[in-house]
């Protein structure tokens, strides 16, 4: 510990020396143990002084340097660079803040400021004595990213990642890509249909040399950490040969005796256990739904392309980063909620969109021609009682858009909007304006007095105490009631559990910080995009997807990651593994290993962020943070405490 130290005390052109007697500081410390040279300087940061420092370090063979000047936020980097230029490892530099925390803070008390400055410099000397040369932790990072979810967010992220130069594995749980966007025909502020958007993105994915797409695929297990994730992917068989004849498949579908609700149509229609992609879904291929298939063998009799011998496959992926874009589920109202499942002409917004899309010329539901449509907003969102306190953001605009589309497509329709206050934010306001101009009726109530859906004389009536007309009771006889259902987190969230992704109050995946790190999760190397993080429209999903893609790419682009060497260290001899440190670590950086026949904790340097949360919880005080060790902190305390 016999370091040769060089110390510079800065006047800062008077900013320090007007209040702190810098010469007195110099005298007070120049005889401290190890101090080989001490100087005062007018401007430590000036180019001339920096050059002098390099010379001093070299000619005196200094192995520890202190500059007492302004805040380390301003010039610590500058002086670390100086020590590096002189051939000294930059961690042998310690900064002493005698401007912001001495001369300026105590400009009313020159003696006090000088005393404090002396103590600060002495504490820096104590710290630099123990400073070690450190090298950044370098880890290899596989230039590949796994993207989970092939809706619009996942597909866009995959394409941009591939364009940026990463290898991409796009993993979709369903047999087809397109996600929710594939289920939307007309989407607002675009002339393209949802299907056209999906089709365009799919073409790019199919033809991109850097992207491999897995459909019917789910993550089974994972190990490793940032730069080096190992994933096992399970791929479901489709039980249909990759080469197939269209007419064979059609025959097979017609003979299949199993009929189930078609989820793509939000159960408005039925499908068979063997079925094909919809027009807006890709790839174009038939599949057998293994859960509902009874293996009756009827399809095999008429179709030679069926192959029940297909087995589940597993694939191992090695990636440097993971991007989650697993989307949302539309809210499913409870039975009786605004007459849902109780009154037969009450449907959800998702169903309504499919209905409008599938109907031609006339809008007919349950055999009845639709004239009056009542839209009840905020179903499953902004709940005062239920779990979903949040606003689903997209539904006001989407509903108004769909209602305009319906009115244009089926002349004679009247739209009645039962709202909680319209939220067509930004430019979407134009749509609200257009709808009002077209003669749509807007009514509003508060959450404590929602509209009521009722049957009177065999007719469906929607009643509201409308606050826009001085809280008058208004009544509409509706041929169709559309419940404007919001977005909810995916009900099936095994992937979130697998990766231990934290959720927010709203149960969507949570980012680290909405503004500073909006697409990063506390699991280093895993980013989140699109509606799995919270309600968004298509453009907003794409923005977040591309942000996540950029972030994920930055983890893998160089093939190597450089991490700060300020990490925790475990003393294996005194550690007796209790696991408390591992629980305290927010970054999953502490694991149990075997050491000379006993269990001890070990720090994974690539996950450790150097926060130190594991230090105070250790019962045997076996963990230290580099540069903040007991001896460093306690020797500083000792010097600061001295009179």
């Amino acid at each position, binding site marked *: 510990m016999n370091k040769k130290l060089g110390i510079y005390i800065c006047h800062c052109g008077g900013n320090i020396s007007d209040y702190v007697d810098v010469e007195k500081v110099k005298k007070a410390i120049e005889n401290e143990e190890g101090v080989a040279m001490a100087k005062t300087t007018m401007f430590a940061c000036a180019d001339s002084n920096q050059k002098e420092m390099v010379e001093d370090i070299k000619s005196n063979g200094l192995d520890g340097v202190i500059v007492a000047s302004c*805040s380390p*936020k301003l010039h610590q980097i500058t002086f670390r660079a100086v020590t590096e230029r002189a051939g000294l490892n930059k961690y042998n530099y310690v900064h002493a*803040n005698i*401007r*912001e*925390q*001495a*001369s*300026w*803070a*105590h*400009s*009313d*008390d020159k003696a*006090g*400021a000088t*005393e*404090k400055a002396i*103590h*600060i410099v002495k*504490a820096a000397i104590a710290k630099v004595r123990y400073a070690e040369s450190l090298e950044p932790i370098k880890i290899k990072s596989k230039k590949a990213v796994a993207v989970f979810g092939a809706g619009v967010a996942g597909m866009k992220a995959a394409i941009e990642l591939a364009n940026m130069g990463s290898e991409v594995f796009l993993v979709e749980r369903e047999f087809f890509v397109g996600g929710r966007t594939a289920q939307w025909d007309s989407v607002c502020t675009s002339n393209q249909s949802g299907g056209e958007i999906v089709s365009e993105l799919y073409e790019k994915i199919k033809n991109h040399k850097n992207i491999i797409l897995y459909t019917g695929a789910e993550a089974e297990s994972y190990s490793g950490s940032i730069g080096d994730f190992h994933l096992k992917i399970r791929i479901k068989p489709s039980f249909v040969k990759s080469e197939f004849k269209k007419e064979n498949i059609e025959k097979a579908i017609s003979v299949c005796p199993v009929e189930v609700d078609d989820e793509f149509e939000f159960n408005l229609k039925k499908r068979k256990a063997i079925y094909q992609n919809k027009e807006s879904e890709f790839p174009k291929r038939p599949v057998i739904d293994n859960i509902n298939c009874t293996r009756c063998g009827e399809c095999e009799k008429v179709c030679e392309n069926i192959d029940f011998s297909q087995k589940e496959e597993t694939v191992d992926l090695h990636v440097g980063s993971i991007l989650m874009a697993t989307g949302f589920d539309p809210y499913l109202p409870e039975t009786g909620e605004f007459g849902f499942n109780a009154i037969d002409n009450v449907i959800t917004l998702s169903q309504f969109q499919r209905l409008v899309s599938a109907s031609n010329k006339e809008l007919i539901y349950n055999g009845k021609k639709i004239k009056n449509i009542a839209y009840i907003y905020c179903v499953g969102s902004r709940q005062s009682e239920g779990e979903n306190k949040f606003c689903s953001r997209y539904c006001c605009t989407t509903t108004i858009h769909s209602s305009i589309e319906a009115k244009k497509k089926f002349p004679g329709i009247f739209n009645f909007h039962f709202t909680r206050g319209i939220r067509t934010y930004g430019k979407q306001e134009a749509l609200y304006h257009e709808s009002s101009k077209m003669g749509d009726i807007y009514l509003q109530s508060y959450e404590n007095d929602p509209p009521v859906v009722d049957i009177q004389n065999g007719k469906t009536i929607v009643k509201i105490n409308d606050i826009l007309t001085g809280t008058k009771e208004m009544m509409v006889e509706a041929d169709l009631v559309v419940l404007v259902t919001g977005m909810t987190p995916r009900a099936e969230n095994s992937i979130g559990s697998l990766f231990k992704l934290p959720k927010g109050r709203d149960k969507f995946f949570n980012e*680290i*910080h909405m503004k*500073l790190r909006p697409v990063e999760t*506390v699991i280093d190397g895993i980013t989140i995009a699109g509606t799995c993080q919270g309600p968004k429209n298509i453009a907003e999903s794409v923005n977040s997807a591309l942000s996540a893609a950029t972030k994920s790419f930055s983890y893998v682009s160089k093939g190597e990651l450089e991490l700060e060497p*300020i990490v925790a260290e475990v003393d294996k001899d005194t550690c007796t593994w209790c696991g408390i440190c591992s629980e*305290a670590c*927010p970054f999953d950086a502490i694991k149990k290993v075997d050491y000379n026949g006993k269990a001890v904790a070990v720090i994974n340097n690539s996950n450790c*962020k*150097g*926060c*130190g*949360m*594991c*230090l*105070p*919880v250790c019962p045997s*005080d076996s963990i230290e*943070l580099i540069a*903040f060790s*007991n001896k460093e*902190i*306690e020797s*500083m*305390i*000792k010097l*600061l*405490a*001295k*009179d």
Partner: protein
Amino acid sequence: MPVSNKKYAKILVFSTEKISDPAIDMAGLLKLHYPPTVYTIPVPCSSGIKPRWILNAFEEGFSGVFIAADGSDCPYGESCTEKTGHIVAKTHELMKEKNIESARLRMAAICSVCSESFVKQMKSFNEYLINNVNN
């Protein structure tokens, strides 16, 4: 403030590099004065402060220890506030064992521009220590 020989108590502040230390810097920048016997040791995060360091400070002669915590601004995550709270609670227990008055350890969340609040905290802590603790 009373003008006497011993008007200042020695206070050790554990600040955090990214959040509260910048606020303490800004207090200086704005020339908001506080007792010059307030010293800071910056650490990465307030939830990484060891109770033994705090006890050590009392043993070495500090009258008070102040944790300028990250609060909800902590870059290492939401659990910081709770964990820092635990450290204070645990340290209070240890202080009790050693007959050190628990009021000599204080904590408050200091955001990165909370200079005024830092200075206020230091003045009132100093006053408390001067009047209540034998220095």
